[in-house]
């Protein structure tokens, strides 16, 4: 069974590679390369896979999942400039792809249990653009 919890945060970011010129960055990342940054209301969906525990009838305590998301993702990232304030985005470009991988990396160690595994992380950068990461080789 799959269960999903949603969370959201708002943050600014910029997508650019320091070794490229402004023009090259614009060609690669478009408007997202504006050096002053811009922001999004990010929405995260975390999906766990497992069978309900017979006594409680739950796959995983969703309050616990909410707390993990809050502590590991929302608090450090909400109303921050990702490139300047949230490692590893000082050196890794905060694309939606890398953000999905980073959310996985932050929460996965806290969700380990014999009954459940992290199935996927979805990050919506806008309503019209989202990335799903299912772990493993990216």
């Amino acid at each position, binding site marked *: 069974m799959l269960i999903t919890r949603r969370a959201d945060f708002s943050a600014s970011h910029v997508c650019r*590679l320091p070794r490229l010129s402004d023009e090259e960055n614009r060609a*690669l990342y478009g408007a997202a390369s504006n050096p002053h940054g811009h922001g999004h209301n990010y929405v995260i969906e975390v999906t766990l896979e497992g069978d309900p525990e017979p006594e409680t009838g739950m796959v995983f305590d969703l309050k616990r999942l909410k707390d993990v998301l809050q502590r590991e993702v929302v608090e450090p990232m909400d109303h921050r400039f990702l490139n300047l304030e949230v490692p590893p985005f000082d050196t*890794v*470009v905060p*694309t939606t792809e*890398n953000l999905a991988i980073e959310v996985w990396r932050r929460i996965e160690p806290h969700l380990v249990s014999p009954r459940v595994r992290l199935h996927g992380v979805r990050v919506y950068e806008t309503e019209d*653009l*989202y990335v*799903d990461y*299912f772990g493993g080789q990216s």
Partner: protein
Amino acid sequence: MIRLTRRYRFSASHRLDAPGLSADENRALYGKCNNPHGHGHDYALEVSVSGPVDAESGRVADVEALDALVREQVIGPFDHHDLNTEVPAFAALVPTTENLALEIRSRLAGRWSQLFPGRGPALDRIRIQETKRNRFELLN
């Protein structure tokens, strides 16, 4: 595995009428969708690509290039058009959303290797929502 999805919208009219069936049979089969004057929908299209994340740029695909392809192959020819009379594939093929999904995949796949040469991202999934109450999905 990582998958990037982009959502697009277009509005189009169509009529479901199978050429091999009688008028009565078409009415019985397609109901309101067989209305001779046609009708329309606001379609929502999701196109998903998957592939390795480029270690430097942090991206699976060039989203602007994908947008340009979808604009050229789908939004331009379909948006505010009549699918039966204005899209050649539907001259003889019923424009159900199933067939629409197949046509969109074939249009995108036809230009894919040109747009993403070499070890580019794969066209992974096409999903179309015809109305709020139905959707159709093609997985590769």
